[in-house]
């Protein structure tokens, strides 16, 4: 049987030749992402914005009457409700901010959800309430703080680990690649205004972990080649390392994607955002470990001596004694 080879054996793509244009584009993309996050903002779900979210299914209809719901629920005087399709065409999510007076007052929050559900079921008796979430401003504030902490902690802890296992330049490179991945994911969520929830933070943390897999594999090979080819120019050596590991990079990204795509397409609606973030992260992470994590090593001054242990005085004396020097 002839086996499949996604990357031909003699592949030698000059990745590093284009490192400056790619870097410029990536830095611009990072900047654009942050600009989007700051101007357009993230579409915070109840987890982070607080408020009330009801999701439900219209059991006997093809499409959820979203326009009609905006009219009916919009006139209840509950501020500006956010009504979106959620998963299947006949599923919706209705989100409202809690008025100040209803904060922490279960009776008031109850009344609001009952009011919304009654309004919808009056016109559509087939409406099935699937979930009903209320998050107070206090709790959503805590969620925002812990989410930020978790992301920063993860990035720093992982960069520190890489530093310990490799060299500081590799730690910085990995950190930069992670920053790139997180920024672009946030940018996408700001651009498409997809709901940003705790699940998305979980997805980003998972991306951080998996994007790093690629980076580590490339770095591991760079380290190995640095010891093996002491005279090779660094850009050339990086290209060699990336090409040598390219088959593995492509294959692993591919298996991740083909495992995740069915979940994205046929999986539970409430996982869509999370899985979409991870899928996006697989692409961004693969790219960043080739184009962000590797070239930065050139600028940070890695050379072939980085992994040669420095000789101690005792070593030198030893060698002298043996007449090697």
């Amino acid at each position, binding site marked *: 049987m002839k086996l499949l080879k996604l990357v031909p054996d003699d592949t030698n793509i000059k990745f590093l030749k284009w490192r400056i244009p790619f870097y410029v584009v990536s830095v611009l993309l990072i900047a654009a992402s942050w600009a989007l996050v700051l101007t357009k903002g993230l579409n915070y779900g109840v987890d982070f914005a607080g408020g009330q979210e009801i999701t439900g299914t219209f059991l006997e209809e093809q499409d959820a009457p979203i326009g009609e719901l905006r009219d009916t629920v919009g006139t209840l005087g509950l501020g500006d409700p956010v009504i979106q399709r959620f998963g299947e065409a006949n599923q919706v999510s209705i989100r409202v901010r809690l008025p100040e007076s209803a904060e922490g007052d279960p009776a008031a929050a109850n009344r609001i959800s009952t009011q919304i559900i009654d309004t919808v079921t009056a016109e559509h008796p087939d409406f099935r309430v699937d979930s009903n979430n209320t998050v107070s401003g206090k709790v959503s504030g805590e969620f925002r703080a812990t989410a930020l902490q978790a992301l920063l*902690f993860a990035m720093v802890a992982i960069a520190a680990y890489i530093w310990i296992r490799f060299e500081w330049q590799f730690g910085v490179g990995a950190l930069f690649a992670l920053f790139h991945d997180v920024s672009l994911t946030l940018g996408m969520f700001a651009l498409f205004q997809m709901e940003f929830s705790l699940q998305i933070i*979980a997805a980003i943390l998972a991306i951080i972990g998996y994007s790093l897999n690629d980076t580590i594999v490339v770095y591991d090979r760079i380290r190995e080649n640095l010891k093996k080819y002491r005279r090779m120019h660094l850009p050339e050596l990086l290209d060699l390392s990336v090409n040598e590991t390219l088959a593995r990079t492509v294959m692993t990204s591919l298996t*991740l994607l083909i495992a*995740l795509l069915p*979940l994205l397409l046929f999986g539970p609606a*409430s*996982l869509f955002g999370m899985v979409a973030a991870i899928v996006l992260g697989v692409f961004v992470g693969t790219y960043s470990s080739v184009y962000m994590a590797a070239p930065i090593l050139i600028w940070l001054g890695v050379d072939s001596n980085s992994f040669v242990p420095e000789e101690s005085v005792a070593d030198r004396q030893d060698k002298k004694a043996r007449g090697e020097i």
Partner: protein
Amino acid sequence: MLDFPLWKRISLWAVTLLLALLALPSIAMLSGTDVPAAVENYEVNLGLDLAGGSHILLEADPSQVAGQRLESLEESVRQELSNAEPRIQIGDVSTADGRLSFMLDDPSEIDRAREVLTPLMNGNSLVREWDLSVVDGNRIVLTQTEQGLDQAVDDAMESATDVVRRRIDDLGTREPTIIRQGDDRIVVQVPGLEDPEQLKDLLGQTARLEFKLVDANALPSDVAQGIANPGSELVPYAEDSDFAGNFEAVRRLGGIRGDSLTNAQQSFDQQTNEPVVSITFDAQGGARFAQLSTENVGRRFAIILDDEVISAPNFNEPILSGSAQISGGFTVESANALAISLRSGALPVDLTIIEERTVGPDLGRDSIVAGAIAMGIGSLMVIVVMIATYGRFGVYATIALALNVLMVLGVMAFMNTTLTLPGIAGFVLTIGAAVDANVLINERIREERKRGRRVVAAVETGYKEASRAIYDANVTNFIAGVLLFLFGSGPIRGFAVVLIIGLFTSVFTAVTLTRMWVAGWLRNKRPSEIHV
């Protein structure tokens, strides 16, 4: 590297099969089959987002506890000083800023006052509860100590948790989880609840019941303007009562607190057939209620629940039976809820619901089915690609993959962890990523063969050289997973649990097991060429 003696092979297989078998009860449960009672303990728990149910986070306000302590300290101080022989006169009492301060009429009595009050400063517990200081020679200031307050908040939360548990048990829901979280929070999780509104009403009710005499001298015009006579206070009527929006002037002192009840039941008034709550006092409470009603026949008294008047009926006759009826605009449900709350005792602090998540039972079932289908298709595609790319080594990788999925579920069942909706995503991610180790190994073997190494040497180097990157990659994933677990809440933790267990099992299956199989094949067939 490729040496696997018999004992090693047997023990590796034993671990694998044992953990894989542990997954079977969970698989049966997830697919909706009845699980024999004998193995029910080895099922994974289903998170509320998959099983349906309510998650409610309650929070108490510690400053309320501080206020209550100050109030009761004021009462005891007044009592102690007036019981002292001779009585110590005080004035200018203030409870501002969380401190009790008062002036002695006679500054020369300061030492005696201090002596009288000292026993109050150390409560029943071992910690010192109050600090006493003297200002300007004649003013005594009592300040709560931090330990004293912490202890009081802790006690209050402990008993609040008990009250919450009794109330939920009274609703007859199955397997509720009620745990304290942090200093001032309680988490309540009730699976498969039909009516979350009822539960929330019940938890939001402090159920502090008081009976106070109505101030007969209060002028309706004064009450309307918000003016109360000295010794009286204005209390609003409850929103559901017949007089919502009005106030009642009641005497501050001389009432009875409803914390001495032995029973409370929802019933119907015999004349009006209106839903009411029947309460029974304990002996002491009954005696005091009998006295109050005997001394005040013909006068009105207010039934006050959580600082709101429910109703203000007449004492028509002395009530000596030790039981009474509370009426006031109840529905059967609200009367029943109040009865449960009163039976379980009043909450020592108000609890507010700061987070609530309820998932309907149908959604979870749909999610499991959709997740299982997606996982099936995904695995199948991964298997096809792996076998097409790596041939025999791909077959090993996919068997390892299948065992890995079973083992993750088996370990989860064994450790009694919870499978949540994001946990399903964790499974799929584990499937996609677990083969990474095999990809690394197989690509390395390809490379080594290309460089001209012989079969056994290539395989050996492949496993050896790849394992460094596999190790580092798993450690960093582990760091991310642990942070996810530490910072995440319920459902997210479920995701972290799957990822973390998956890291360990996937290294075991994808590296150790496949190496054993490859070694066996190499030893038996001694192939001179391998297709990787």
